């Protein structure tokens, strides 16, 4: 069981801020493929992952990172703080 969070326009396109998932994905990229296959709103949100960032357990990571042991995955556009 993994918790997946969405922020900013990723959250808007998918239509929810977070969800719990059962997944067999071994990397972030695998998880993205699984999500894309679910529904068009996921496919739309993940159409171009070069426009997205990912954090694993609240640390910035990359799409080829392994998911083993990870409890929280977050997807979001590049940050615009400051």
């Amino acid at each position: 069981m993994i918790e997946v969070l969405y922020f900013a326009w990723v959250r808007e396109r998918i239509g929810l801020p977070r969800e719990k998932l059962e997944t067999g994905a071994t990397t972030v990229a695998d998880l993205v493929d699984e999500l894309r296959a679910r529904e068009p709103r996921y496919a739309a949100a993940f159409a171009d992952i070069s426009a997205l960032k990912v954090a694993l357990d609240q640390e910035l990571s990359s799409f080829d990172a392994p998911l083993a042991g990870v409890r929280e995955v977050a997807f979001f556009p590049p940050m615009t703080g400051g």
Partner: protein
Amino acid sequence: MRVAVQSAPFDVGAEVTAFTSGVRGAGAVVSFAGLVRDEGGDLSGMEIEHYPGMTEKAILGIVGQAVDRWSLKDALVIHRHGALKPGEAIMMVATAALHRMDAFAAAEFLMDYLKSRAPFWKREIRAGGDAWVAAKEADEDALKRWE
């Protein structure tokens, strides 16, 4: 060293006074404040989303790096989330060091980091509709000078 992520407005000057009077032995204090522009009335406000849990931890990590790298006497970051009005402070940083070069460099480093690495997303509320602020390549490039 203090990091605050809050929805409440704050007074930049009052924070500078408190920060300055709490520092011992510093010769230089730099502050930066980012304000919501009004763009001639076109921008009526801003909404800031963040990633609770990650935000403060991420900022504390980078403040720690800045303190070590420039031998800071103290450092402060305040960043708002939620609804903001034109003219209000979005965020501020303050740094205190023995010498001005260190205080300036650390403040600029913290700002460059907060622009591109802290999990905040700005949405501008405009007469013509709302829109997420796009990340700027210049902000990503600015980070490279600290590598």
